[in-house]
Structures are given as structure tokens and as C-alpha cells.
């Protein structure tokens, strides 16, 4: 377990750093443009410039620190979940198990919430709805993870012919997604920023998260695939 956690933490830090690098290059432009737009809008409405708590440079560093801390936390969670489900992933190697869990996790934790409530650059969110939007985001995240888990359970326990089982699993997942997408309300905010700017940012955000998950899953699996070091406190398990 300790070896697994060490691998996950290291992989998470690397994933956070890689996504911060991606965000700093691909995401810097859209964020700057969005903040410029936000400033011009607030000038037009209130006439006064609100005092910023941090300078842009500090926020860019804070954003990178945030992504690295987030990567570390994600790496730890990923490692523990991998330890719990890894043996049941029907994967021939630890690397394959890690990549499988990474793929499922990326779809369940990132892609499905993104499709329902896509990321937005600064200047888009309405401050008065932030709590409602946070609740909705939590709801779609929780339902998406629950659905992935339930469908995986179904696939493992259902006793159907192999082809039927595959189709039934896929159909169940698709049906679950439809229910989630219909049951949750649309985002309460109207997006007034230019679609081009919004989508440049959304793609940068999705890219940063894809980089993070890919690095995390590959690095965790690779670290686990190396010859196990003798760990006296972890005698009965090599992983």
C-alpha cells in the first residue's frame, strides 16, 4: 500500500506540473482575454475599477500551485482506488490496470461533468449563482461516478452471453447518461462572452485535465511495473 501511495503521489505531482505547464501555455491567452473583457464590462457598468486582491502574475503562479496541489490530491485518491479495484480490472499488468482506471476515471470525473456543465473562463460566471452552480457541479460529478461504478458492478456480476453482456453494459451506461443529462437542470448562467473566447478556454481546460489524467495513469502504472523494492512494513504485498 505504501509503495502504491508513493507511486500515486509522485505521479500526481508530475501530472499537476504537466497540466500547469499546459495551462500556462495553451490557457494563458484565453484567461488574459477573458479578464480584459471582464474589466471592460465592469468599467462600462459601474464605472469603477474593483481592487484586485492579487496581481495577474501572482494569480498565474497560484493557478500553477493549485493545479500541482490538485494533482497530488488526485494522485493519492487514484492510487487508493487503484489498490481497491486494480485486481478486479482484468488487466494483465499493473500499467494496463492503471491506464484502464485512468480512462474510466477521466470519462467519469472529467468528460461527463464537462459535457453537462463545461468549464468557463473568468468573465462568464454570475457571482449570485455560484453556490447553485457548485451544487449542480457536485451533483453531476457524484452521479457520474456512481453510474460508472454501478455499470462496472453490473458488468462484473451479470451472467449473460459475452456479446449480450457487452451490449447490455454499454446500453446501461448510455441510458444512465441520458437520465443524468435530463434530470439535472441547465446551468443557470447565460454566457454572454464571445463563443470563440469561451471555447478557446474550454478546450485549454479540457486539455490541461487530459494531460493531467494521462500523465497520472501512465506514471502510476509505470512506477508500479518496476521491480518491487522490498518493503518490510508491507511484507505480504508487493504492490
Amino acid at each position: 500500500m505504501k509503495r502504491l501511495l508513493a507511486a500515486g503521489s509522485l505521479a500526481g505531482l508530475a501530472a499537476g506540473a504537466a497540466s500547469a505547464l499546459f495551462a500556462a501555455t495553451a490557457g494563458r491567452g484565453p484567461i488574459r482575454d477573458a479578464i480584459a473583457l471582464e474589466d471592460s464590462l465592469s468599467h462600462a457598468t459601474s464605472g469603477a475599477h474593483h481592487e484586485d486582491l492579487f496581481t495577474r502574475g501572482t494569480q498565474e503562479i497560484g493557478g500553477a500551485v493549485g493545479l500541482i496541489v490538485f494533482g497530488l490530491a488526485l494522485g493519492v485518491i487514484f492510487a487508493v482506488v487503484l489498490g481497491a479495484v486494480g485486481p478486479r480490472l482484468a488487466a494483465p499488468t499493473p500499467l494496463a490496470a492503471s491506464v484502464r482506471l485512468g480512462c474510466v476515471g477521466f470519462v467519469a470525473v472529467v468528460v461527463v461533468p464537462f459535457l453537462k456543465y463545461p468549464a468557463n473562463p473568468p468573465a462568464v460566471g454570475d457571482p449570485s449563482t455560484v453556490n447553485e452552480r457548485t451544487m449542480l457541479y457536485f451533483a453531476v460529478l457524484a452521479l457520474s461516478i456512481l453510474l460508472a461504478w454501478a455499470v462496472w458492478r453490473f458488468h462484473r456480476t451479470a451472467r449473460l452471453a459475452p456479446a449480450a453482456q457487452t451490449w447490455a453494459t454499454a446500453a446501461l451506461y448510455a441510458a444512465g447518461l441520458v437520465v443524468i443529462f435530463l434530470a439535472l437542470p441547465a446551468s443557470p448562467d447565460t454566457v454572454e462572452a464571445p463563443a470563440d473566447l469561451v471555447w478557446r478556454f474550454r478546450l485549454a481546460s479540457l486539455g490541461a485535465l487530459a494531460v493531467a489524467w494521462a500523465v497520472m495513469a501512465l506514471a502510476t502504472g509505470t512506477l508500479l511495473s518496476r521491480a518491487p523494492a522490498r518493503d518490510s512494513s508491507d511484507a505480504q504485498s508487493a504492490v
Partner: protein
Amino acid sequence: MLVLAPGVCDTASMETHALPAPAAPAFEEIDVPVWAWALVAVAALVSYFVMLENGTVLAGAAETLHEFFHDGRHFVGVPCH
């Protein structure tokens, strides 16, 4: 060993064709101790403070945290003002 699940990311079945004898052993069964799950809770809490705190839990320091990590929050895609 279970039946290979043909899924979105079926790397495992591809690798079984590519590598007749896997170099590394399959994922071993390990006990996940309670403290590991406690660590997961801590990690989730850290993510919450970094990414989602809008003032619900921390009243005063929230804005400082929020503004410092602001760019990161937007990239992770969590709701923001």
C-alpha cells in the same frame, strides 16, 4: 481472471496480443487499510479547499484562497464567479 471487458480503453486486451508473456505480474490483491481511505478523505478535502471553496466553510480566508488559486479553479472546470 475475468472475461476481458471490451470497453472504451481496451489497452489490456491489446497488450495481451502484443505481449505473449507479460514482463510484470498482474495486479496483486492487496488490503487497502482504513488509513488509506482516511487519506482519500483528506485529499478530497484539500481539493475542496483549493478548488471549490467559495465561502461556505471558511468565511474570511476563503476569498484569499479563492483569488490565489483562481486560474487553477477555472482550468479544473469548477464553477466560479
